[in-house]
């Protein structure tokens, strides 16, 4: 295979769909982008990016444990992510309430234990994790249609959960004491969110790699929240940005020699930077208020 870019955009795009592996990559990328963008919107609102990071790192002990046990690597990812999510949720409460200060210490500790176990499993396994580089930095080669289907399943279940519990989760993210007083099961939502986050991170890492998960999980959502403070529009923007990032990145990776992870991260960074600059310099009146949002009130 030796695809090359021409000046004919239509034929360039058509070429993308010639090989089945590329079709799989585009399908998987699309699914993961939607999943990561919606989950990420809540991560940014709840300020749990560090938790997301620790959960993404759990792919390492998960994969090496799976290699040791001789089972499929994704099963290892998801099991490790879920275990870590439960540990973080359990350790981050004081006075019957989520304590963000304690949470960050617990997350760091969980992350270290994850790494330690990963190295232990790897040395017990004795071999070399051939896929280590793609585990860390992502790969769009060799995504099977079975993998696409399992990602679709995870995404559908996760999005359905957000559909059902999104509003109470939003209410308790903004004011947990009020939500608790009104009978919202705040604790259950906190734990469930971390487990869902673990699954979303595990799914996203299969495209972006463990280290670059934030390119789809956090950057599009953070950019969207810079651009608007509306809830529905923010979610829609987050999904749109994530889709654009993954599509452009896959297209560029297909035609060039650089990894998809590099493109995903650079494009996501550029979009976030642009969103920050727009909020900083654009649409402001002398009181420092976004004209966009001020006119909404009128």
């Amino acid at each position, binding site marked *: 295979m030796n695809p090359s870019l021409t000046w004919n955009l239509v034929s360039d795009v058509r070429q993308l769909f010639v090989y089945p592996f590329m079709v799989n990559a585009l399908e998987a990328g699309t699914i993961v982008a939607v999943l990561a963008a919606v989950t990420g919107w809540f991560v940014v609102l709840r300020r749990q990016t560090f938790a997301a990071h620790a959960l993404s790192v759990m792919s390492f002990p998960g994969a090496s444990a799976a290699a040791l046990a001789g089972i499929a690597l994704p099963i290892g990812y998801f099991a490790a992510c879920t275990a870590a999510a439960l540990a973080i949720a359990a350790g981050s409460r004081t006075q019957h309430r989520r304590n963000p200060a304690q949470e960050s210490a617990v997350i760091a500790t969980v992350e270290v234990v994850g790494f330690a176990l990963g190295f232990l499993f790897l040395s017990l396994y004795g071999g070399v994790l051939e896929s280590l580089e793609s585990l860390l930095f992502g790969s769009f080669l060799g995504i099977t249609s079975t993998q696409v289907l399992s990602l679709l399943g995870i995404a559908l279940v996760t999005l359905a959960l957000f559909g*059902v519990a999104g509003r109470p989760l939003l209410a308790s993210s903004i004011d947990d004491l009020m939500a608790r007083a*009104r009978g919202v099961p705040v604790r259950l939502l906190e734990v469930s969110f971390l487990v869902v986050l673990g699954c979303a991170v595990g799914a996203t890492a299969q495209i972006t790699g463990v280290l670059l998960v934030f390119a789809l999980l956090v950057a599009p959502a953070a950019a969207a929240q810079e651009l608007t403070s509306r809830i529905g529009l923010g979610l829609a923007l987050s999904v749109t940005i994530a889709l654009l990032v993954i599509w452009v990145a896959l297209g560029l990776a297909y035609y060039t020699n650089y990894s998809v992870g590099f493109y995903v991260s650079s494009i996501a960074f550029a979009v976030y930077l642009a969103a920050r600059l727009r909020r900083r310099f654009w649409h402001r009146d002398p009181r420092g208020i976004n004209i966009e949002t001020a006119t909404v009130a009128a």
Partner: protein
Amino acid sequence: MTALSQPEAPAVELRGVTVERDGRPVWRNADVRIEQGEFVAVLGPNGAGKSTLLDLLLGLLRPTTGSISVLGGGPGSNGDQIGYLPQRHAFDSTTRIRGVDIVRLGLDGTRFGLPLPWRKGPREEVRKAIDLVGASDYAGRSIGECSGGEQQRLLIARTLISAPRLLLLDEPLDSLDLPNQSAVAALVNRIRRQQGVTVLLVAHDVNPLLPYVDRVVYVAGGRVLAGKPEDVITNQTLSDLYESPVEVLRTSDGRLVVVGQPEAPAHHSDRHHHP
């Protein structure tokens, strides 16, 4: 006053209530009766158990002994008739949610399921609540970009939107400057009159509330004392409560200054330790 014309059950009644947190008594043997439509200031030093009183009324905490009735039922049985504003720190500019959306969460934020596209009903209720607190100029803005006073008005609108009969406001004047403290106190009083709700407002300083309060509940020294402000905030009563000499001074402009009240013991500072 509405309270006198209504012979029905009190809005809040505590009889012989003793409460503990983590095995330690917070306060003992409290008897408090609050009539419907009253404006009540809950006063006392930090950590004396003012928020604990609200937790009891919300049914989040059970008393060790004694009985509590809230709007004629048990605590927690009529949560939809209570508007609760927890003590909190201000939203900073990174919280990118519009004020209007936060107000709406007071109406349907606890519901599971996908929110339908805005029906006319909720939108109208949201607008009314925002108008009531005078926040329509900035409700469309991201809440983190609103000033402390503006945020507090929006949060009060959130508690009002479910048309509650009882408002429990935990330190809504905290972290506001003096003009805003007076303005928010006046706003709460106007809402109390217009909507006929009963208000329990936890505060550090009674002065912004003095023009409006019918009753004060003083929580200090492991005890709770309720009565008219002129009966409770006196040298004699407060000295008895604290079991040490306390002096109440009245300044020339009518403000009350309490001198010599001891600090609360450290182990009671549960609710005031925020991360």
